[in-house]
């Protein structure tokens, strides 16, 4: 009997404590964890232990700059936490390599806690020494860290400062000597070797850049030279990135690249293409101009900066990931292909108004192919001088008409009155010529757009679509006769056609006026 009562008492205590615990749990959850509102670029998540398997405890949120500043006050520098290897500072905390789980863990625990402990004893402001202080599930700081890039402007500033001594940064790995060597004229991008993650003896891009950049900058500081940033925010804070000095115009990077190129399949004898069925006209390509349009070479080239046809054959080859030459040049959803990039330009505000309505159809016969494929096939002339080819390409490029073509002003109707919709609303006075002039004006400085719209009437097709180019296109109502035409289900009626076209275009081009129905047409009973 006594035993039972004892049991009962315990049950009561356990039940009450469970309910109380749950209650406080709910209360605790209802409190929103405090997040420091100021985003910072130096928030580092220390989760290195993930390399040894699943994390047992929450990763640590580490504020790098808070530590640099604290150390600076005590006249300590990077060496307080970072070791040096080959006379260069190594980014990992107090170690060169992640050897094993226990060792790395000890390095962190000893390194962090001992320093915090010492400062605690000295009654100085310092970080936590207990587990939860560092290992917290809650995110306390919003990170603003953004990857940084080495654009052409930065590259020029660096090469200028290094007196054009490319070897100071560029190197290659020599398999035989197992050493880093420099080969003149074969400079490539860092990412050719340095990938996202460290693999074998190739450092990751992150590791390599932190070693190389920061070390050099630090040395310059010690020599009291002007140099780049050494702190996290110096490179990774978006607002600081904005302030990095830009050179304009940027002098051309010289790596013996051609001014103009004739894009074609690999010549015979290189073993790339075995078949000899290329009937397509070659494409004259202004390489120099395209260098200016893009920030890095990688935008078009892959990391290796090879010629396109070295890897992309007509049939596709392993080096080119089995992407054939045609796809490499025309793939629409790629940022590297010609057509992909050109089509992306159609999303520009000045272009989107018309182009957003143009469906992507595979058109078999279209003169637009010939806009690029304009050079004659020169395969037969084996002995042709490469310089002749260059001259030909240059002349072809120079003879291109890059001005949008329009009809004479008086051939363009000034005003079109749209009466078809005057049921509830008045007719619309559509300022036709004003719109045409605005569209032409928008692209007159755009070489790409100018070249593709140089034919008279091609700009008219933005609205007068689906009918042959003509100075007298058919009326809209000729096709858009009735809504919900079962035979042409995707063709809107006249009401939808006008509203979709006008409003869609205005929206895409960011034209805010007219706002609301009555700015185009007055309501009938409102007069």
């Amino acid at each position, binding site marked *: *009997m006594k035993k*039972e*009562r004892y*049991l*009962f008492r315990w*049950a009561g205590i356990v*039940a009450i404590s*469970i*309910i109380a615990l*749950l209650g406080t*749990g*709910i209360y605790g*959850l*209802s409190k929103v964890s405090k997040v420091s509102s100021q985003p910072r670029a130096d928030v580092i998540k220390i989760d290195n232990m993930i390399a040894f398997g699943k994390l047992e405890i929450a990763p640590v949120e580490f504020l790098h700059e808070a530590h640099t500043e604290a150390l600076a006050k005590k006249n300590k520098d990077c060496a307080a936490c970072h070791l040096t290897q080959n006379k260069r500072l190594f980014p990992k905390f107090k170690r060169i390599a992640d050897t094993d789980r226990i060792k790395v863990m000890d390095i962190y625990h000893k390194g962090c806690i001992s320093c915090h402990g010492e400062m605690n004893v000295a009654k100085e402001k310092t970080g936590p020494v207990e587990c939860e202080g560092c290992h917290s599930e809650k995110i306390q700081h919003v990170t603003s860290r953004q990857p940084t890039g080495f654009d052409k402007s930065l590259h020029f500033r660096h090469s200028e400062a290094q007196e054009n001594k490319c070897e100071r940064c560029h190197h290659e790995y020599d398999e035989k000597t197992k050493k880093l060597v420099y080969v003149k004229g074969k400079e490539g991008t860092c990412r050719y070797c340095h990938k996202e993650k460290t693999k074998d003896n190739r450092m990751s891009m992150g590791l390599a850049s932190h070693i190389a950049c920061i070390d050099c900058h630090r040395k310059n500081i010690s020599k009291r030279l002007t140099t780049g940033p050494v702190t996290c925010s110096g490179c990774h804070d978006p607002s600081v990135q904005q302030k990095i000095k830009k050179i304009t115009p940027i002098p051309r990077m010289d790596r013996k690249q051609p001014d103009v190129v004739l894009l074609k399949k690999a010549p015979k004898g290189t073993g790339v293409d075995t078949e000899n069925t290329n009937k397509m006209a070659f494409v004259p390509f202004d390489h120099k101009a395209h260098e200016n349009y893009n920030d890095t070479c990688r935008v078009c080239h892959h990391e290796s900066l090879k010629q396109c046809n070295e890897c992309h054959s007509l049939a596709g080859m392993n080096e080119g990931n089995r992407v054939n030459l045609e796809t490499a040049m025309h793939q629409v959803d790629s940022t590297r292909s010609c057509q992909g990039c050109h089509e992306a330009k159609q999303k520009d505000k000045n272009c989107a108004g018309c182009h957003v309505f143009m469906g992507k159809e595979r058109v078999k016969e279209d003169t637009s192919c010939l806009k690029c494929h304009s050079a004659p096939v020169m395969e037969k002339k084996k002995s042709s001088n490469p310089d002749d080819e260059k001259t030909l390409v240059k002349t072809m490029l120079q003879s291109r008409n890059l001005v949008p073509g329009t009809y004479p002003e008086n051939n363009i109707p000034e005003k079109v009155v749209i009466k078809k919709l005057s049921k509830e609303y008045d007719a619309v006075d559509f300022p036709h010529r004003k719109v045409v002039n605005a569209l032409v004006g928008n692209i007159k400085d755009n070489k790409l757009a100018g070249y593709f719209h140089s034919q008279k009437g091609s700009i008219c097709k933005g609205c007068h679509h689906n009918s042959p180019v003509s100075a007298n296109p058919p009326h809209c109502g000729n096709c858009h006769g009735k809504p919900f035409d079962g035979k042409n289900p995707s063709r809107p009626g006249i009401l939808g056609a006008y509203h979709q076209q006008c409003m869609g275009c205005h929206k895409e081009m960011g034209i805010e006026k007219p706002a609301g129905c009555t700015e185009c047409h007055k309501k009938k009973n409102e007069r």
Partner: protein
Amino acid sequence: MSDKAAIDHKTWFTPFNAISGTIIIIGIVISILRFTVGLGAVTHLSDDNPWGLWIGFDLLVGVALAAGGYVTSAAVYLFGMKKFHSAVRPAVLTGFLGYSLVVFALTYDVGRPWRLPYPFIMQQGTTSLLFEVAGCVALYLTVLFLEFVPAPLEWLGFKKVRELAVKLTLPLTVLGVVLSTLHQSSLGALYLIAPSKLHPLWYSTYLPVFFFVSSIIAGLSMVIYESALSHHYFADKMDAAHLQESEGVTLGFGKAASLILAGYFTIKVMGIAGGDHWHLLGTPYGLWFLVEMIGFVALPSFLYAVGVRNKDVTLIKWTAAWTVLGIVINRLNVSLIAFNWHLPSARRYFPHWMEIATSVFIVTIGIVLFRFIVTRMPVFYEHPEYKD
């Protein structure tokens, strides 16, 4: 409540009559408002929350708590537990009153109550769980009436008719269990059609089973709880057999309730496993779910067990009350608290005071009717003329 005064018929003005009278007057006023101005005037029901307290409490809780009738009659007449015989009539009476009031409450909630027979006489929406519930409740109400009818017949002295009614006991009990199994589970199954609205911890394809099993628990606990109250207030109405058997009933039903609660806990856990909702237990809704599961299922199961082992009738009675509260919480969770959980708080439902007042009004009617009947008819005692 001073009952002696009321039973003596000396004065009508007793605290019980005063309180219940006030509630009933308020209830009548609200009823007039409801049936003349419409649901919008007295409820907080909205297009997002079409079912409120009147369904969540009056229907779901009401039906669950009236389960004592079928549980007790099945135990006595089918499972042969004759020692619980004295518990049958009070349980059947509560069941009958409970179901009558559920139907009464429904007339408040549905838009056109006079059309309540439409599902049977006009068009049969046979794919609706509600059709099944409606059919079973209607039939079961008749069954309960027939099961209870010997009591008023004895009171009124209609011997022959009473004989006929008593003969029907066995088939009625079987029919009662069948109908109860069906509609108790179907009340849970009502929510099967809305997996996108009910919180996943409460939504399960086992919902009908959960509702059926918990209705047995509710029935058992209600019988214990009610007998505790009756002993307090109507002890003078009870015969020797009733008083003698009462402790046995409490212990026996407590034992059954403890066992079934344990089983219920198990299948609820399996429900979570089946839906793989473990991760939701850490959320605020999950904690509330744990409160229900641990505080109102696991704990009463254990307390019942302790009470039965110790023959501690007081503990069992308190546990019964706690379990009944747990059933109320469970039904309200499914119908109101965890329902529409995805909606922003501004679109959630909280009952209007008049809805609460109406529910209180209906419960009060139940208590008054129960009191009226047990003070007159042979419920707590065997009629001297009809002793077997």
